[in-house]
């Protein structure tokens, strides 16, 4: 099943095979730092705390969506970005962490409020749950963990990405005032990408 000329896909794969994944971490860190710098120097407008919180959250969601695209892209076009997925996932996690830290350290800035807000505000509860789900994934995103857990268990564990991303999408829709388009676009893309997988699982089960 290819919607894409096979030799094109192979050409792309030849390039990606030679490209290292580590620049993704570097670009991610640079981007996070640049946004922070903009916040410090007025580049994010007169309310930089909220702006920085939003930007980190959005980048995290974008990277998680890209992570979800890797498999369908391979299935439909033959282009494999598999070797970048760990870097994409970990960088997404770091942006979620940065988002969380801006919220706790800059936005709330009182420790007692953190627990209370997580419990009392459903959209925060949901966002926090997504963050917590990502922690074991970040911790086990290394070859040693795959070896220790075994490929099957590891893969099963990393299916936690799906509920985590979904929680992120709901968190975004729930927190905005009114009905801006963006959170619904993210949610639509994420639900679409997850539904693809449901179909594959069904088909696999049917074949088996």
């Amino acid at each position, binding site marked *: 099943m290819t919607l894409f000329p096979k030799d094109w896909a192979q050409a792309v794969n030849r390039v990606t095979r030679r490209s290292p994944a580590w620049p993704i971490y570097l670009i991610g860190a640079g981007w996070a730092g640049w946004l922070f710098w903009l916040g410090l120097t007025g580049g994010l*407008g*007169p309310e930089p705390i*909220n702006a920085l919180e939003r930007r980190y959250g959005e980048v995290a969601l974008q990277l998680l969506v890209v992570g979800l695209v890797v498999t369908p892209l391979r299935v439909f076009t033959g282009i494999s970005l598999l070797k970048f997925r760990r870097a994409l996932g970990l960088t997404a996690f770091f942006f979620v962490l940065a988002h969380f830290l801006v919220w706790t350290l800059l936005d*709330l*800035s009182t420790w007692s409020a953190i627990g209370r807000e997580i419990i009392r505000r459903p959209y925060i509860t949901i966002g926090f749950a997504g963050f917590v789900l990502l922690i074991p994934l970040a911790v086990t995103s290394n070859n040693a963990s795959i070896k220790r857990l075994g490929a099957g268990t590891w893969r099963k564990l990393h299916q936690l990405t799906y509920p985590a991303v979904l929680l992120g999408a709901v968190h975004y829709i729930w927190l905005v005032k009114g009905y801006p388009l963006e959170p619904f676009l993210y949610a639509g893309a994420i639900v679409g990408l997850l539904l693809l997988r449901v179909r594959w699982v069904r088909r696999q089960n049917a074949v088996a």
Partner: protein
Amino acid sequence: MVTRWINDLTRDDVTPKGLFMNRRAVLAGLGSIGAASLMAGRADAQALEPNTLEQISTYNNFYEFGWDKTDPAAHAGDMVTSPWSITIDGMVDNPGTFTLADLLDGLSIEERIYRFRCVEAWSMVVPWNGVQLSDVLAKAGVQSSARYVAFETTVQRDVMPGVQRSIIPFPYVEGLRLDEAQHPLTMLATGIYGEPMPNQNGAPIRLVVPWKYGFKSIKSIVKITLTDTQPPTTWNRLNSREYGFYSNVNPEVDHPRWSQGSERKIGGGLFASRQETLMFNGYEEQVAHLYEGMDLREDY
């Protein structure tokens, strides 16, 4: 008949007056808890230091121009604000459509420095220029049957991207109870810092009700209607559980999704801390009597 608001806040004495007013508000809010040091800290933090014109005019909600805070400044420039006319109708002795000059004729423009508190838990201090709404209403001749005042914003579809992608039912509408509208704090503002009102802030004339959340202070008004029934208001229509008709600033009644107990004043940078939100946004002494006997949890 019309009471005058004695404008005792000028730019020269904002800080001491702010300290003074806040101390009283803090005392009222905290009851007997208040440690002197805490109160001093809070009062200092909330001194009525006006925001810069740049801050006031680059961080706005004006949904006719888009959902982002930067959209109004980016897109409102094309809004036509001159000539401008306002229709006053309903239960008034002198209904009609007036030019801005006619509407303001005989009234003197005053400067008033007010706190401005958004329902999204941020705040500013704005030196408005304008007239007291009660004076305009007196000119129109409010009939004794009137109970409410309804307001409507202009719709200029061609230059309003938010109206073209309309999810909110425009025109934006707001309303006040008549006694709120006639309260001496309530004003129709035509400028900021002595400059004409920036389009993104609601040029050429907008409502300012400093003890209510910002969305009550409707922008770019083209119609004022006196009525005996409570008028619909846009955010209440969109989500009545979250946005009530009154929408008085109240730190004790949280928005269903977030706390209203504190706010962050715009302009403090990346390390700005939150400050306590004051009952009725610090105007408790002036307006609390309007709501005597009402359950403000019920009538949020």
